């Protein structure tokens, strides 16, 4: 696309420069013997009413067609950006006035404004340029205003203001660099539209006046006889569209290039094969979900990262399992892979994947879709993103049951009301009619839980459902999840970075690090019985409320492993105080210490309680 855009623009530029020189004389030479001719060998596009060659006129007017379009856009952009940027600098009242003014201008269609001003300024090329500049200025003003307001609200702008930086510096260093890029793109695209609009004005007789001429005028002259000779009208039309497309393409290429500005990434080869942990879990009849050796690969810039590297897990009906890990451990991608919600470009592979008794790999797309829609529900950290902001709660709650279970509307609404009652939201009637933004964060999360349980799913995956909420609300949400699980025998996979929260709520805890599960143990054993060095570190970092202020928890040196890395050893190697030579060479596999406890470590810590939990408990009173 980039090459095409450049080639098209280059051809236009060359034509614009050499056109008037090469074809200018021919374009102005009247030939009374050949008026209004059709296409012939000598005149490929025919001639006009004075016998002038139309092809020459078309080529020669490239410059006079493009220049006004560019000028008008630049003038409009300058005026609009000034107006828009002004709103970021001035005080509150002036800002509101300016905003209202911009709104007013935007209320009129740009072409109408252009025509009005073209008439006002008097027909002619110059008048048309000014008219068009006036017409496109409000769009630029609005864009700049919005962009500048976005930057003005950021923390780094607040920080700069706290630092006492002056206004012009704020604008120059922090505002303009952030708005320049989209503005540039917009300008490029606007040139294309201006060209079309300008041709339109000429076509209407408001633009270029004979004897000067541009594409629009040629088009209008050609149109007079379009039924007898289509080519004299079609050719200028093609020229206009060609140039318009060229500028649009350039805009898109620029936009693409702008979004591709990633920080430089290292190039890594394909991952070396590592021993795949085999699924050793007892295959019980009540297994709801079972996945073995789940891997996710994701393109990032010019390399491939592997954030999930062989996760095996199994969930029974009605079980609440916690998946703990820090950011980048792969816990969320694991969840997304289980729900078929991976981002574009990501690829999941597994050696076994069964859900609700069916082999996921062998299902058709439709079957899988249905299975997920009826059997699994997800609750996200940000409940706002899970709802369509424009739809009423009622619609969003009843949509799925009506579609998949064929339940009539009234019944579905009744069901929704019952679910809302269950999540302890009073005033269900009013609530059903409200839209997501009218609810508080805690309310939204409860509605999300109600929505999730509408289908009575077998499995709910909750990805950090309380992270954005206050502790007291968090408490309510956790109670609610426990209730859902108890009442419906729903299994819950609870994903969180908060190990204390997980220990409090779940039966079993899986600890993730560097894309692998490093330990799996009963939640009640977490406080004293963790054996993996990383789990111990997590446990120790939970300060508890009674911790002594003077004793700092042991921090972790080093950095988490690079998700693109290909080193063969233990992911925790760099930060592990326990490491052996073997750890660097061989990845430890998850192996059972006892029937309920598995750990992936070559040298698990001894099961003594004290070293794992320094000073977290010394009960007051």
């Amino acid at each position: 696309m980039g090459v095409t855009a450049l080639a098209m623009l280059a051809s236009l530029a060359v034509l614009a420069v050499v056109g008037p020189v090469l074809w200018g004389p021919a374009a102005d030479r009247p030939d009374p013997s050949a008026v209004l001719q059709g296409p012939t060998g000598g005149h490929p596009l025919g001639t006009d009413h004075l016998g002038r060659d139309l092809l020459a006129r078309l080529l020669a007017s490239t410059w006079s067609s493009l220049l006004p379009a560019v000028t008008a856009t630049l003038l409009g952009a300058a005026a609009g950006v000034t107006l828009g940027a002004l709103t970021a600098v001035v005080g509150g009242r002036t800002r509101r006035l300016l905003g209202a003014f911009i709104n007013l201008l935007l209320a009129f269609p740009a072409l109408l404004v252009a025509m009005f001003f073209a008439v006002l300024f008097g027909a002619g090329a110059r008048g048309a340029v000014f008219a068009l500049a006036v017409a496109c200025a409000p769009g630029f003003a609005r864009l700049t205003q919005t962009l500048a307001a976005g930057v003005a609200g950021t923390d780094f702008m607040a920080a700069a203001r706290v630092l006492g930086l002056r206004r012009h510096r704020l604008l120059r260093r922090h505002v303009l660099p952030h708005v320049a890029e989209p503005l540039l793109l917009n300008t490029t695209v606007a040139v294309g539209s201006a060209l079309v609009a300008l041709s339109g004005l000429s076509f209407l007789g408001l633009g270029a006046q004979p004897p000067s001429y541009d594409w629009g005028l040629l088009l209008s002259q050609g149109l007079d006889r379009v039924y007898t000779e289509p080519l004299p009208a079609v050719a200028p039309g093609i020229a206009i569209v060609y140039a318009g497309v060229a500028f649009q393409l350039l805009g898109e290429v620029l936009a693409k290039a702008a979004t591709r500005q990633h920080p430089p990434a290292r190039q890594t080869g394909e991952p070396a094969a590592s021993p795949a942990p085999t699924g050793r879990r007892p295959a019980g009849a009540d297994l709801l979900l079972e996945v073995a050796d789940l891997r996710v690969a994701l393109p990032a810039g010019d390399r491939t990262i592997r954030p999930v590297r062989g996760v095996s897990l199994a969930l029974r009906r009605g079980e609440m399992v916690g998946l703990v890990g820090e950011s980048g451990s792969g816990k969320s991608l694991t969840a997304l892979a289980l729900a078929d919600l991976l981002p574009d470009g990501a690829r999941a592979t597994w050696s076994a994947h069964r859900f609700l008794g069916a082999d996921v790999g062998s299902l058709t797309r439709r079957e899988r879709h249905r299975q997920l829609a009826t059997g699994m529900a997800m609750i996200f950290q940000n409940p706002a993103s899970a709802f369509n902001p424009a739809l009423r709660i009622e619609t969003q709650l009843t949509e799925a049951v009506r579609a998949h279970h064929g339940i009539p509307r009234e019944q579905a609404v009744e069901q929704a009301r019952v679910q809302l009652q269950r999540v302890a939201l009073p005033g269900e009637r009013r609530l059903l009619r409200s839209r997501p933004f009218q609810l508080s964060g805690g309310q939204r999360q409860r509605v999300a839980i109600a929505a999730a349980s509408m289908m009575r799913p077998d499995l709910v995956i909750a990805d950090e459902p309380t992270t954005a909420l206050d502790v007291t609300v968090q408490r309510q949400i956790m109670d609610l999840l426990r209730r859902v699980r108890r009442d419906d025998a729903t299994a819950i996979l609870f994903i969180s970075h908060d190990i204390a929260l997980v220990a409090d709520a779940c039966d079993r805890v899986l600890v993730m690090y560097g894309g692998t599960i490093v330990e799996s143990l009963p939640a009640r054993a977490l406080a004293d019985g963790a054996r993996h060095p990383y789990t111990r570190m997590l446990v120790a970092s939970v300060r508890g409320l009674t911790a002594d202020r003077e004793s700092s928890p042991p921090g972790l040196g080093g950095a988490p492993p690079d998700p693109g890395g290909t080193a063969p050893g233990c992911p925790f190697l760099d930060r592990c105080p326990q490491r052996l030579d073997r750890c660097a060479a061989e990845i430890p596999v998850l192996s059972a210490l006892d029937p309920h406890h598995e750990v992936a470590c070559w040298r698990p810590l001894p099961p003594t309680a004290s070293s794992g939990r320094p000073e977290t408990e010394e009960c007051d009173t």
Partner: protein
Amino acid sequence: MSGVRGPGGLPEQSRGARGVRGARGAGLALHDVTVRHHGPYGPVTAVDGVSLEIARGRTVGLVGESGSGKSTLARAIVGLDRPCAGRIAIDGREYPVRRAADRRRWGRRVQLVFQDPDTALDPRMTVRQSLAEAAGAFARLDRRAREQRVGELLELVGLDAGCAGRLPGQLSGGQRQRVAVARALAVDPAVLVADEVTSALDVSVRAALLGMLRELQRRMGFAMLFISHDLAAVRQVSDAVAVMYLGRIVETASNEALPGGARHPYTRTLLSAVPSLHTGRRPGGEALPLSGEAPDPASPPAGCRFHPRCPVGPSRRPGREVCAVQDPWDETARVACHFPYPAGDGPEHA
């Protein structure tokens, strides 16, 4: 001055042990600060008559739910929001209200570190540029001096000099937050306001950042207001804790007195909601479920603002109707409650 108004519970010796720089009265003093916003349905009093003192070298932790006004208070202290009543003073000098130049100079005394390290730094400026800009905000520095200052700042927050050329996007969350702290400290402020600085960080980096803040405070002697909803983090860095509910401070207590010595029912509720690794043993005492939603700050309840949700208030305990009528809050009380828990850990309410 002690960490918080109402010195009860702050032992003398612990105050003397820390190197407090500056004279008596140095540090941050808030008196009856009130901040109003323009809400969609009229003015909302986000901060209502807050008084607080933090001496140099001391830290007060401010806890409360979202909507309690703690972030608004932070913005008011650094001059991003203008209080409509009350006084804010640093080292005895009051916040200048009118002139823009004075307001700019205010930034030399107080700085703010934001919650989200992803957005707190300009994504297009390198670490060096950000720090140099801050260092040059109030002092004219030539190129050499600036470069040297950037190096010092990076060392101060424990970052490698090699980080200077990086963009924020190339740093980890913890590193970014360190840069943000360095930027705030570049002007050597008397007061540092830390607004939820650890809540976006992983646990393994959280502890290190908290430790660093305390160490920096010991070295530089600034007063710190540490705002967080994470009570464990607050307890780890603070000398005293203030609890905010619907725009007001409802309880202040020395850190040593918590969690057992919490006297306000709301404080108890907050403490009991903190999950514990040791299931069933909540360090804050008995579990106190909060009922209902946080009320709209635009129309706070009459009487005690906490009474519709209070676990030991009028809706649960007969005979406590006074809570719904009479406001227990007053300027000088350490606990704004008609029926506070006793100072010890006696379960009077049980």
